[in-house]
């Protein structure tokens, strides 16, 4: 039977088997120790899983208004591409996964490495999303804007997929903005395949509704001398989880993984990453900064694996946390596993509070306590925001952070 299946269909059948047997990841798994999906399970069991929502024909075109500095914008409603409201720049090939799925899907987010039912479920069930590919040189920046068709829609689960393929020396900046309102589950898998010399800057801004769930997996395979830069900003969702797995498969490949997260209320924000240094002279750097307020929980777990025989590798990894409330929780676990001697590596983590001396200094100049507080939080986040590609996204991140801090203090502050 299986001989008649296409490779993708076969993968999907295998994935379905894995999903059926594993189910949702449980806290018994090390990688899910601090993130319990019971709340998600409860909600999904009520609605019976995947619900496909129709896109209203009168959908507000304003929602697709492009940001400054972008060559194109793709609007994805409930994870489905809305071609009518999208602008596709020259040089970018877009395939709607609702129509056809490229055979290479599912080969990077490798199932054999993942005991993760969510990724398997996505591969088995995804019915929406896009595949992007670039063969020429720099196309510029494109935004993928993920919105929900209706705020009032019943709890819906969407299994969406994104594939980004860059040919030799192609360059692209992709900004995913997940801004859906309402109560929904977004199980989203992104696969990235970079050929030799390709450069991808990849931003994810997750500010979904705080009643929703964001489960994001990003898997990246890098060819010789390719460059992958990731900037993940997590502000939204009740549970926001982002897993990045990078395979530095050929010599000279390098990656940079940056993150910023801000938890308020009861939010649970989880960032996982695994970087595989498989080939010689591969380099990676990682900097995640978390701001945890109220009763929120922030998790960072980063694993860097230097393979046997991969000489001349260099890696740095740092997770810094700013805790603004006594009831907030931080779990941080930077990890290095090195299988050879020819490596430069540094890693660490910090958990701290606002600097009292700095607060006093600002206040001694007439700045009230709450503004001083906001200024210092901004200063903490500034380092990672400043490295985000596209200026309009930096502004958007600053504005979002300012809005969130203002909600806390009732004040606005300029960065």
């Amino acid at each position, binding site marked *: 039977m299986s001989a008649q299946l296409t490779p993708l269909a076969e993968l999907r059948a295998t994935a379905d088997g894995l999903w059926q047997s594993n189910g949702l990841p449980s806290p018994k798994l090390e990688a899910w120790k601090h993130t319990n999906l019971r709340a998600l399970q409860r909600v999904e069991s009520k609605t019976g899983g995947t619900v496909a929502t129709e896109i209203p024909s009168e959908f507000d075109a304003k929602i697709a208004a492009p940001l400054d500095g972008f060559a194109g914008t793709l609007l994805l409603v409930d994870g489905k591409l809305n071609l009518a409201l999208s602008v596709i720049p020259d040089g970018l090939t877009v395939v709607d996964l609702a129509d056809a799925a490229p055979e290479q899907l599912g080969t990077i987010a490798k199932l054999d490495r993942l005991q993760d039912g969510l990724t398997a479920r996505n591969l088995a069930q995804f019915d929406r999303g896009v595949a992007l590919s670039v063969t020429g040189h720099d196309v510029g920046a494109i935004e993928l804007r993920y919105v929900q068709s209706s705020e009032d829609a019943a709890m819906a689960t969407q299994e969406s997929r994104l594939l980004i393929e860059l040919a030799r020396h192609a360059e692209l900046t992709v900004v995913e903005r997940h801004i859906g309102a309402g109560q929904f589950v977004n199980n989203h898998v992104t696969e990235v395949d970079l050929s030799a010399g390709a450069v991808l800057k990849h931003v994810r801004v997750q500010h979904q509704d705080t009643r929703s769930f964001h489960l994001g997996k990003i898997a990246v395979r890098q060819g010789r001398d390719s460059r992958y830069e990731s900037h993940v900003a997590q502000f939204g969702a009740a549970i926001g989880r982002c897993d990045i797995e990078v395979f530095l498969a050929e010599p000279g490949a390098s990656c940079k993984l940056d993150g910023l997260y801000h938890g308020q209320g009861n939010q649970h924000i989880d960032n996982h990453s695994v970087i595989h240094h498989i080939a010689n002279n591969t380099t990676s750097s990682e900097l995640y900064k978390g701001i945890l307020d109220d009763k929120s929980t922030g998790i960072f777990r980063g694993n860097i694996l230097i393979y046997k025989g991969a000489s001349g590798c260099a890696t740095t990894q740092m997770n810094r946390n700013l805790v603004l409330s006594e009831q907030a929780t931080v779990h941080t676990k930077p990890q290095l596993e090195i299988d050879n001697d020819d490596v430069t590596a540094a890693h660490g983590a910090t958990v701290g509070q606002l*600097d*009292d*001396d*700095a607060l*006093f*200094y*600002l*206040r*001694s*100049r*007439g*700045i*009230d*306590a709450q*503004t*001083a507080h906001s*200024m*210092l939080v*901004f*200063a*903490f986040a*500034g*380092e990672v925001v400043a490295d985000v590609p596209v200026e309009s996204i930096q502004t958007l991140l600053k504005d979002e952070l300012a809005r969130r801090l203002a909600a806390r203090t009732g004040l606005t*502050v*300029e*960065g």
Partner: protein
Amino acid sequence: MLEIKNLKVKVGGKDILRGLTLDVPAGEVHAIMGPNGSGKSTLSYVLAGREGYDVTGGEVSFDGKDLLEMEADERAREGMFLAFQYPVEVPGVSNKVFLKHALNSIRKHRGQEELDAVGFLKLFRSKLKTVKMDKKLAGRELNSGFSGGEKKRNEILQMAMLEPKFAILDETDSGLDIDALKAVSDGVNALRDENRGMLVITHYQRLLDYIVPDRVHVLLDGRIVKSGGKELALELEERGYDWIRAEQGGAN
């Protein structure tokens, strides 16, 4: 303008100020000199409103108001300014953004219109000249990576911008070379005004050659034990503090 009466302060349960009394009228510059551990820095921090100090007695009246009842930022808005001995480095906060926030919160409190970006920059540039500070430096992150001298100049720049009613200069001369000392002193002297009081806290007489005080007070073991004119500073420089201790006649 600033009246301190019998001020007693403990730090971590230990008596540091033991009944300090001092009156600095508007328009005058007073100097406080004293050996290490006499309570100089505690006095400046208590007046500026830093946390961690227990006031166990006495009172401080500032321009007729109870200073000790106010939060640190309220004191600043009322016109109190402390030039820090060790200005704090605040990476990630731009010097300019910080100063604009500070200035506008003070202006708002005074009932003045807040300055927009243009108005602020104009004022900022003119004040940079008075402290001979590099424009580039001034636009950087607040005190971050500044040398000792640059930090002190930045304190005086802030003072020039904020135009406080009363300024405390805590060991402003420490760590300064002669050029920086001159620039800082010139900046301070330019701010001497009949409506403004100043308290210059220093270890060494040298600073007082440049910022000439109206009165000099000796702080010893948490109390002002001797006061005099500017010549008292010279005498202290020559003779040290032991003779004053002896004059106290084992009162401690």
